[in-house]
């Protein structure tokens, strides 16, 4: 066991896996940093410090700094993956799927299917997502729901350094395209990370906390919010079963349904706006498959149906809070 920041869990896993597997190639904007400057390569790493030292260790062929051309970055990842490499392509902000979605959605996600199952496309697309930095409407978004809806992609949302390492290893050793969503507000969070070469399989949710009164489902930054609410509620003797999905596609339906079978009450926390998001998705699965267990309306705690505002007070009001979760839990418990 070692203490490690979430961002360092990304970085150290990349170092280890690139050493282990020659076919891994990293590309993205400023993943080297300093190219074409007096300072030279690695003068300064990417803005998230999740690729520091890779260029020096693995060289220009395997660590490729790119111009600001996200479509070409994602497309190149597709081309690398189709030809036997394992690209790890970085979108500096998940919001930039706006300028590169075609390559992710219409190309990478579909190659194997369209091509009759003859190809594999093991591209890992890392992207920093989420609010909390007052980075406003174009640098703060959650995109997991958009990508979860796209067949052919796997979507991973680690909430702890331990999960980052275990899930990133699984992503890098699998043969399907993976969207790896790193929450900006978690990068500096520290946590214990087991030693050794462990992996965490996809579609294995993590029980963050157990309880028999209400099920709370969350991902990424929202896991901590849910946990905080659960702690608060525990003081009133309310037991929350908090589940961190870890991956949204594939999904650990069993963990969700099993928990709801016990609690009969469900709160889903989603950082995305309310329409067609992951909260509605989970809600629908439960309303179909665990209907008989449900004892109260399914509550969803989400961002509002608005773009993400800049000002401190506004962003704070925008983001789901543990108070919101607490209120939702109390609401579902009050229902008879």
């Amino acid at each position, binding site marked *: 066991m070692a203490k490690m920041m979430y961002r360092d869990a990304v970085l150290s896993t990349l170092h280890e896996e690139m050493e282990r597997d020659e076919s891994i190639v990293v590309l993205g904007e400023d993943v080297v940093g300093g190219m074409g400057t007096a300072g030279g390569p690695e003068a300064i790493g990417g803005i998230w410090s999740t690729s520091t030292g890779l260029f020096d260790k693995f060289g220009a062929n395997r660590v*490729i700094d790119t111009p600001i051309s996200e479509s070409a970055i994602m497309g190149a990842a597709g081309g690398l993956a189709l030809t036997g490499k394992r690209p790890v392509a970085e979108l500096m902000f998940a919001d930039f799927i706006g300028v590169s979605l075609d390559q992710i959605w219409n190309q990478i996600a579909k190659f194997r299917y369209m091509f009759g199952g003859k190809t594999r496309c093991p591209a890992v697309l890392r992207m920093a997502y989420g609010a909390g930095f007052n980075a406003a409407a174009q640098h703060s978004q959650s995109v997991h729901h958009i990508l979860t809806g796209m067949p052919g992609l796997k979507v991973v949302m680690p909430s702890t350094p331990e999960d980052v390492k275990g899930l990133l290893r699984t992503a890098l050793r699998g043969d399907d395209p993976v969207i790896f969503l790193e929450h900006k507000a978690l990068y500096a969070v520290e946590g214990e990370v087991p030693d050794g070469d462990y992996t965490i399989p996809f579609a294995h949710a993590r029980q963050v906390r157990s309880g028999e009164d209400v099920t709370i489902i969350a991902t990424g930054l929202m896991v901590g919010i849910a946990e905080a609410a659960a702690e608060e509620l525990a003081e009133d003797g309310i037991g929350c079963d908090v589940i961190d999905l870890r991956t949204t596609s594939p999904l650990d339906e069993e963990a969700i349904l099993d928990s709801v079978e016990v609690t009969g009450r469900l709160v889903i926390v989603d950082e995305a706006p309310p329409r067609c998001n992951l909260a509605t998705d989970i809600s629908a699965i439960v309303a179909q498959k665990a209907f008989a267990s449900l004892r109260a309306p399914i509550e969803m705690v989400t961002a509002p149906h608005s773009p993400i505002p800049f000002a401190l007070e506004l962003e704070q009001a925008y983001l789901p809070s543990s108070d919101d979760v607490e209120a939702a839990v109390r609401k579902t418990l009050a229902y008879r």
Partner: protein
Amino acid sequence: MQLSREQLVQAFRRMCTIRAFEERLHDEIATGEIAGFTHLYCGQEAVAVGVCEHLDAADKIVSTHRGHGHCLAKGCDVTDMMKEIWGSSEGLCKGRGGSMHIADADVGMLGANGIVGAGAPIAVGAAMSLKIDGEGKVAITFSGDGACNQGTTFEAMNMAVVTKAPCIFVFENNHYSEHTGFEYAVGTSKDIASRAEAFGMKVWRGDGCDFTSVYETMREVLEYVRAGNGPAAVEFDTERFYGHFEGDPQNYRGEGELDRIRETRDCLKIFRAQATGAKLLDDAELDAIQQAAIDDVDAAVQAARAAPRPTADDVTKDVYIEY
């Protein structure tokens, strides 16, 4: 014409196969037997073949919505392709891809593509991969004159230059993107190669209706790129004999335009004139090759008609390797 007799026969044979394939599809589509959108490559055969005759399976190509010619030139199996277009479960892509998504990684064919301009970035990635492998292999992306206006194409060119990827951008300028003329859509420059040049790439130009021009141009281009000089671009002037897709009435064409290009710009006729003029092949030999191609395609159609159909369970297969 500096090719051996054998090479010439093979090139002509391939061009004839593409022509026969497309002409036959033109007829079959009219009868309603084939579903979906089909874009025929007739008229442009010299480009696909003149490029791909230089390649082996380790070189990669990425194609477009008008992809049959590239696929056949790169070595995709005629019958498997026909089965795919027919939607059979024995098709090259098990009937899931169809005309716009034919691919065969085994022969280095990384896919036709329904999204205009999407191929170029993929080819750059393939080229990065080949650069790592270090064996002098190249990735080639075909783009139309319309595709050259898509942002992805520009990004890909710059990215290839910056990363010195062994990528070749082959532009097939057939003067039309759907129903819009090249004269309108490609700015006032009307010059695709110059755009590529502005990214710092070395560029070539050639006559896409003349196999020799394509082949000899590509010899230079490939020498340059295989030597590790980074990417390059080529613009070939060529002609599209049929409509944008099957069903297009083509009333944007000038009077007699189609007759004229069929008469003076047919790559098969031009090849024939050169080969017979230089006394390398005679008309009877060429006729026999052409007929053999037609026969092959006919056999492929018969096979496709008789081939098994996919079933409902096939829909959800191959979405993931494991899920």
